[in-house]
């Protein structure tokens, strides 16, 4: 088992005082190596919160989180950062590319802590996503779909074991979304990464090995029609 969540809870304090707003209520989730899981659910159900907790971008109020047998919640800040750098790749709804850096530089941002830069890998990945001719362009010179592809390459540059995608097609038009979905699944297969995707896109959810529904703070298998 690559990823194990047990009794994960998360709530946010109420501005008016009193009891907080419980977003995640005792979530259990296990993900195998190379498994692809989609998390669906209504808006505001806590999907992104769950993803952020798994990616150690946020901390749960309770429960345990194990990655490959290691308790992630016991990590120090630097250890957590190293985990995110080496073992996790993020793709967000908004690409969050750095406007001052070129495409190649953006892709290589996760390699900053390392002395050796795997430029060949970056060029190879960019070629695979069809952006080899854009490596010296800045994000401002790319379309939305192209930016998201760069974000995808950035997420994969360090060969992460777990790829987390939060609404990766959320800000794209239909054509770009389809393109990205295809790329995501193809490259993921080739890279043999485990993938956890939060999505509203049925096309994307269909391509996953497993779909789970987050509703009322609880996680359950999705039994609906895709």
């Amino acid at each position, binding site marked *: 088992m690559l990823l194990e969540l047990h009794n994960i809870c998360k709530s946010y304090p109420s501005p008016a005082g009193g009891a907080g707003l419980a977003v995640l209520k005792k979530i259990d989730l296990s993900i195998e190596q190379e498994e692809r899981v989609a998390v669906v659910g209504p808006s505001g159900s806590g999907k992104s919160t769950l993803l952020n907790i798994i990616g150690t971008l946020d901390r749960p109020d309770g429960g345990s989180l194990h990655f490959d047998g290691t308790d992630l919640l016991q990590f120090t800040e*630097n250890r957590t950062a190293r985990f995110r*750098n080496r073992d996790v790749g993020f793709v967000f709804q908004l690409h*969050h590319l750095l406007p*001052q*850096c070129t495409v190649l530089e953006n892709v*290589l*941002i996760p390699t*900053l802590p390392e002395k050796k830069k795997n430029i060949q890998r970056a060029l190879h990945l960019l070629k695979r996503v069809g952006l080899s001719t854009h490596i010296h362009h800045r994000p401002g010179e790319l379309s939305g779909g192209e930016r998201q592809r760069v974000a995808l390459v*950035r997420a994969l540059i360090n060969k992460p074991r777990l790829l987390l995608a939060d609404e990766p097609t959320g800000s794209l038009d239909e054509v770009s979304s389809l393109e990205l979905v295809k790329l995501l699944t193809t490259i993921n297969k080739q890279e043999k990464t485990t993938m956890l995707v939060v999505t509203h896109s049925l096309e994307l959810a269909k391509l996953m090995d497993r779909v789970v529904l987050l509703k009322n703070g609880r996680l359950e298998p999705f039994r609906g029609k895709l």
Partner: protein
Amino acid sequence: MNWLKFILSSLRYYSRQHAGLFLGTALSAAVLVGALLAGDSVSHSLQRFVRLRLGQVEYVLEQNERFFTADLAADLAAALKTSTAPVLKLRGMVIENNSGLRVNNVQVLGVDERFWRMSSQSISLGAIGDNQAFLNMRLARRLNTHTGDRIVLLIEQIDFMPKDTAFSARQNTKSFHLEVQSPVGDDHLGRFSLSSNQVSPLTVFVPLRTLQDKLDLAGKANLILIAERPASVLQLPELRAALKSKITLADMGLSLETQNKQPYFDLISERVFIEPAIEHAVQNLNLPHQPILSYFVNSIDFNKNTTPYSFVSAPGPPLVPDTLNDDEIIILRWLARDLRVHSGDRVELRYFIPAPLNTLEEHSAAFKVQSVIDIKPDDSARSLMPRFSGLSDVENCRDWHPGISIDLSKIRNKDEEYWDLYRGTPKAFITLNAAQKLWQNRFGRVTAIRFLLKDADMASVAKELLNNVSPAALGFLFRPVLVQGLKSSSQAVDFGQLFLGLSFFIIISALLLSALFFVFHRQSRNSETGILKAVGIPPQAIKMAALAEGAGVAFAGTGFGLILGIIYSYLLILGLNTVWQGAVGETSLILFINPYSLLFGFTLAFCAALFFLWRALKSQTKRQISLLQANTLQYNPPLSGGKPAISLFITCVCISCAAVLILFSVYSQELTTPIFFISGTLILCSFIFLLNALFGYVGKSKNKGYPNLFTVGYKNIARRKRRSILTITLLAVGIFCVIAVGVNQQELPATPAEPSSGTGGFIFYAETTLPIIDNLNEQSVKRKLHMEDSSLAGASYVQLRVRPGDDASCLNLNRTANPRLLGVDPLKFAQRNSFSFETAIPEIKGENPWLALHNDLGENVIPAVADQTVITWGLGMNIGDELSYIDEKGREIKLKLIAGLNSSIFQGSILISEKQFITHFPSISGYRIVLADGITPGAEQPGKIISAALTSFGIDLETAAGRLARFHVVENTYLLMFLMLGGLGLLIGSIGFGVIILRNVAESRNEYAILQAVGFNKKSIALLILYEHLTLLILGMACGTLAALTALIPHFTKALPNVPLYLTAFILFTLLASGIFWSYLGTKTALKGSLISVLREE
């Protein structure tokens, strides 16, 4: 991709956004570096002035009241193998012929070619005629003279005999008509002075020979300048040894005179009385000698017979045998006949003894006639008469004009006959012991020493005597003026620190502004921080990268700030030379760029900027990644009220403490500025905490009823509580400090005639160029000087002796080690309860410090008082400390500071008792400071009469209150500088206020969009924005101003509050206008374009 590339990319991309940080750090660096350079410039200028005023002079040999031969200079030059120059240094007055403009207290220097070669330029100014003179630049400007103009120079006629002796010549001035040549520039010793002061003296340079001839001082000088020796350093022991080997009896005012084939020769002094040091040296020679004391008596009486105006002498054997008792007298037959007296009869001698203020007390002494003798009217007899000026040098008795008043009508024909035959031969003889009991004084105990040797031995006696006399004991002292001057200037007021302190607000405001720009910029890059964290870059690395980026901008800004700093320092120096000249006196400072200060300033400014950036970054990277990525600009602090109750409690405590202090002050009727300043600070704190509590309550409160624009605005203020409180606090603290400190000006006493005030109750303060020997309270003196006007009917005068020295007042930037000494009769001040003391040593607790000036503190330790500000700032000392001086006998004396005066008219001087003054500086005759009271304050006539009466003494008269005000000018100038620079800092702070406004509106654009979407028009939204920000501005200004007014209550209770209202109002108005401008600009920016599109972007 590496960190350097990343940082450089970010710098390039965000260069415009970094403009604020760049300019903020540039400004703070400019002010910091500028302050340091200004300090260096002042310091450099002072050091330069030392070189300008001394040229190549390293040492001086100076005699204040004695004259030696000018040839001594040449002899010393040969012995020391360096250049020297003899100078006649005197005080005088100058009158410009055309305009009649008169300048007193002028330094008159009789110089020759050697003097001019002492300048740093080492060139000659060319030949100058006997009736020509050079003026220095300052005097030329004061008199407005040009080449060819004519002046009258007035100098006191020199008498070798100290003026305080009864028989010195009456005061006369000599006048010189001189043609002015081109003024002497600073580079040519135009600034020459032996006093450490940045202000150039007023100097007239006259040919040495001319001055010597006109003043009957042929071949004399009283100052020798000794130049630095390039080959090797001159040391004091070498100088003293050279002087010892070259000094002659003539230099000491001594001469050995034979008496026409008599088997003896006499040692006499041009000062008439032979100093104890000489007498002691003679005794050490173990040669046969006889001390002689002769005196001029008013009369010798027997019964009703009287012989007027005669000399009585104690010449020793053979005239006075050893068998003569102290109460016996031997008289000439001429006298015996005149008085019809015989052996065994008792005669009475009547004679004058000088008392203070040149009053003469007549004393008498009775002696029994032991025998009557005859002596030949030869030179040996006549030589017993001392050479009293006005007595010994006239042909007839009726031509006598000694220093004392004599009634020439008493002189009879037989007296003239006696004079024709015997001249000044003494008519009577007593023992030396008896004579010294009657007539010895501080100038000496003998008027001649007779060596009972042959003439041939004269040379060897002279040599032996010179070997045995210490020149230092006669006041021949070398002063290392160059070292003293450089030391004095190096310890001067540190203008660097001063300007740093005064510019403190500007520096902090600029740094805060920089940090503010940086924080806002980093907030706009929240998503970048978030994504870097998300991809696993360690937080510390992200922080360091951000800091490095900021550091890059700060480095460039600080570098630019160096250039601005040079400009700023130039402006500061320009300010000191013009509008702030009150702080430095009539002088011209020059800009000096010290590379070390540039480096230090750069480093300090850069490090300060880095610190502020680091502090600003601290909170940034701690935020959760999800929040960082959520929205870059949205500012959504939790609506937490914090703990308002604690803030309220602190408010109550502060107000209570302030109330207690104010009540205590009012009750005790001591409205002291420090108490009210503390009260003001407490009031300010209470305001801030009260607002903090209010905002906290608003944050927690639930709305009742419908909200309106004002409640929305108020909630916005409370929502951004920290930012709002910070804005208000910065404004309030800035206003409070600037106003409460800057307007804290020293003012004149409310009642200047009050004895305990700084004026001592005196109406006029006057200094004279020439000493006044007479007692101005004496009716005869008033009559003589035409000071009997009715407006002066009740006037009384206190006169003080002056030993020249450095000015230790706040008007002199240099640290002085040798302040001017004033000798005062302490009883005069004690009786009047004049002045008041701030401090006193514990040992004199309960004593009147004035009377404590008479206390015996041990050998060569003298009690002294001075203004407390002089002690602390001028001398850098505390009460109880001791100042070292060398007296006229070459002894080191310690002046112990027993008490510190409250700010007084004596600032700059040290006061000792007149008795001690006379003991240690006997040659300094007369009084040069006159204080007058008993005059109606504000009346002009008395001042004019006194000035007219004492014109010939070169009087400079001013009101005592006016003199006190001049000292306050320095402190008030510093406060004015603080006010101006602090105000500038506030204005910079207002830019920060503007930045906050722009930031607030940028963050709230979506809120404004929502308001517009739900139906509010742009005008309403504009009102909301204005209300919100003007509230912050007004709250900040109100808090600061009210607190400042509390601190200023003592000032407003005075009859004439000296508050610079216009400047204060200007600063407040400008701040308000600036705040309104920024609020308006923020409003316009917020409502620019379509707000609805903001919602669409959301």
